[in-house]
């Protein structure tokens, strides 16, 4: 089995093309994913907070808390939050759908982060606007595993 580190080591190289799996999403794929969500509308920085440890113990399970400053009323609430990882093979990580029944716009999960990169969260509000936050993370590689 090709280990995760061998996988990363071959990133961008011919070996990887032969394997048929991208190590990193292309910028076009990331842009397309964001466009699919926003329809090309402006994404403003703010109101969203993406809380991820800056230094990650292991890229297989990165704790992530996403929250959005919103009263979560019928008139003014968060409809959805999407998480993006441009440094992963696929740009979209997770999409959650909330609404006024949530009471609060805040979710916690654990994510796979393939390599050091800038993660981002984009929230769509009930008025159709988009807001975002991003965090740069560093992924260290575990020593002493099944492969090395």
């Amino acid at each position, binding site marked *: *089995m*090709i280990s995760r580190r061998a*996988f990363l080591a071959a990133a961008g190289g011919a070996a990887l093309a032969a*394997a*048929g*799996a991208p190590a990193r999403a292309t910028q076009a794929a990331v842009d397309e994913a964001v466009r699919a969500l926003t329809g090309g509308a402006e994404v403003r920085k703010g109101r969203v907070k993406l809380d991820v440890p800056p230094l990650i113990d292991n890229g*297989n*399970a*990165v704790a992530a808390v996403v929250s959005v400053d919103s009263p979560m009323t019928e008139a003014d609430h968060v409809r959805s939050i999407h*998480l993006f*990882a441009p440094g*992963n*093979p*696929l740009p*979209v*990580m*997770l*999409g*959650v*759908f*909330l*609404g*006024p*029944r*949530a*009471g*609060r716009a*805040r*979710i*916690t*999960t*654990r*994510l*796979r*982060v393939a390599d050091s990169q800038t993660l981002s969260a984009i929230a769509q509000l009930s008025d159709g606007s988009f807001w975002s936050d991003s965090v740069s993370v560093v992924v260290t590689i575990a020593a002493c595993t099944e492969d090395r």
Partner: protein
Amino acid sequence: MARAIVQVPAQAKRGEIIEIKTLIGHTMETGFRHNDRGELIPRDIIRLFVCTYNGVEVFRAELHPAVSANPLLIFPTVATESGTLEFRWTGDNGFSAVRSAKVEVS
């Protein structure tokens, strides 16, 4: 049957925001790994998680391979009335799991 842990407060006050923790056993095979023979291991993940509250959807999540194995989802909901919260996970290869929990709202 898939193993899962669901934590919901048994009681809540009307209008209180309660926090629900869910954890389900699943390898979330990304579809990017290879086995010892160099063959690609096909993707096998949970794709969707839905929480309903007395039959009304109050939370939904679309999962992709970037969600860690044994997916954890913690989310809030307003305790509107007594009743049943139902949690449903579905995914590749016909994966399906359901759990429910009761909440008493006063």
